[in-house]
């Protein structure tokens, strides 16, 4: 996994609640292996004019000023719905490394932490203020620091956030958990001996 420590970048605002993972990547693109660049599938239908396939110039992701954005800002319950990890892959492959919202779908939040995409929960008022600052100055930069657990807005204000300490450690170091858990083989085997045949069948 790619490590995340600190990121300064433009942020693209999607100020809507309940943006689901079906919108982030429609189901018909889910049969591709991870090696395929999923960035092209990101908001595939949402960013196009229905019926024509043309890119909608109004959709924030299509605006040139946000072309280099690596942070996505969204309304409450971002990436709710399906557990598809390809929602994270699509964002990651399109260059995003961080998402900021008042709340996230639980599974997406976990998927993000395991794939180098940091989900940051800030209070709704703070997210609204940040979106306001970005809309006033599109392309303005935001800094997200996983070491200090702080987001710095374009106006210089600093906002703390919380991340699960274990997942934070893994993301800071770029570790994946499987290797770590495999080193706990003795504990797992001991559990299995205690547990015996319970729930084996």
């Amino acid at each position, binding site marked *: 996994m790619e490590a995340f420590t600190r990121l300064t970048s433009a942020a693209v605002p999607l100020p809507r609640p309940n943006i689901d993972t*079906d919108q982030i990547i429609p189901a018909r693109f889910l049969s591709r292996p*991870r090696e395929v660049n999923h960035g092209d599938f990101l908001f595939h239908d*949402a960013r196009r004019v229905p019926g024509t396939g043309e890119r909608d110039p109004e959709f924030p992701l299509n605006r040139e000023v946000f072309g280099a954005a690596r942070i996505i800002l969204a309304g409450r319950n971002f990436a709710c719905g399906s557990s598809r*990890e390809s929602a994270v892959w699509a964002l990651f492959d399109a260059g995003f490394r961080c998402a900021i919202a008042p709340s996230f779908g639980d599974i997406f939040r*976990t998927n993000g932490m395991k794939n180098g995409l940091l989900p940051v929960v800030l209070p709704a008022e703070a997210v609204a203020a940040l979106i306001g600052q970005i809309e006033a100055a599109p392309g303005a930069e935001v800094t997200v620091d996983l070491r200090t657990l702080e987001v710095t807005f374009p106006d210089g204000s600093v906002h703390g956030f919380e991340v699960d300490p274990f997942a934070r450690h893994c993301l800071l170091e770029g570790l994946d958990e*499987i290797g770590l858990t495999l080193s*706990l083989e003795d504990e797992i085997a001991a*559990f299995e001996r205690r547990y015996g*045949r319970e729930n084996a*069948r």
Partner: protein
Amino acid sequence: MQAEEAMSEAPRTMFEKIWERHRVLEREDGQTLLYVDRHLVHEGGAAAFAALRRRGLAPRAPERIFTVPDHYAPTDSRRLDDIRDPRHREMIEQLARNSEEHGIRHFGLGGPEQGIVHVIGPELGLSQPGMLIVCGDSHTSTHGALGALAFGIGSSEVAHVLATQTLWQRKPKTMRITVDGRLGEGVSAKDVILAIIARIGAAGATGHVIEYAGSAIAGLSMEGRLTLCNMSIEAGGRAGMVAPDELAFDYLAGRAYAPEDWEAALARWRALPSDSGAVFDAEVTLDGGAIEPMVTWGNSPEEALPIGGTVPGPEAAADAERRETLARTLDYMGLAPGMALEGLAVDRVFIGSCTNSRIEDLRAAAAVARGRRVAESVEAWVVPGSEAVKRQAEAEGLHEVFRGAGFDWREPGCSMCVGMNGDIARPGSRVASTSNRNFMGRQGPGARTHLVSPAMAAAAAVSGHFTDVRRLLAGGG
């Protein structure tokens, strides 16, 4: 040790009991390694198997893993060769190959056990009270209806469980949703869960495991409880559960994978329900008697109203952002403020999905369809949840009822709930669907999904528009 003993005497929730029983170890920061009893895998597991292969690892406990194709399963045939899209066929074949390679029990396409993973788990007795069950699918919450802790995980976590049979978790919060009273005629578990989501919102239970309680819940059938728990994720909940009781035990008795030592299992299961006095982090109560047949009107399951309701207008939106979202939703859905839901014409009807494709769902729909005809303008499908449901329905003659009424009687799979196998609706078409998500594009680009119960879906099919099923049940219309 003393502290531990004191803790064990404090009243515990069912969730806490299952959590503690599966704890392999807990780190100082609270992160807990949990042991997984059952790992269910559908075609979406491909990336996880590939990740395992890259590392040169094999599944740690293949006997605890069960695989079944459902998302890409064709519903017009049982033959792989009939699948037109080679990618879809490959997803199904890959799952069979991975299962065979690792000695995993696979319920293959065309076999007698195949079906939607969340239908066959309970049906085969794989899902049992007190178990920790995971699957790379958000609707894994379904299995909680049997008193299990069951939740959906992502692909990286699927790989982790394959490799280690364990999962790192932070303890979620608990929420009890109590529904008391008697459900009215024509009101089903689907209406209950839609009413709950409408009340608490699509993120209302984020970070929580829900326990459903109260007399209206205890009064639900097993199928109804499965429907209820299924949509916990639509309320943001990590999992949903119902205390196991005699109904659950009777349901499991004699199933293919029921415990070998039944008496020992029963003794464990009887100790599972939350202790009286157990404290939940959040409590919600609803009056079951006040719940009516529900219809969603928007693109989030929280946007649901009783059938007698009207589409909300901008005055219902709290702020400019919500007004903009509402305008966009109504534009997508082809609705205008003030429109009545009843009478809204439908183009397609889909009865199926892990939410509502079990035998009781098909009986409820057939009761409405019997002696009636699907409206000329409507294409109506019934997709049974599994081969076993299909066999049972055919033994009861339900397929004849549906066919006689003009429904298409199809083969088991996820089908139009998610459209991955190509079963989708045309842009702009309005679908009465018994599935779980009314997201934009969920049933095909531009498709307009309204979530309803099986009886309400059948009522829409024969009426050509949404209507109050209670009127049809009373002999009208």
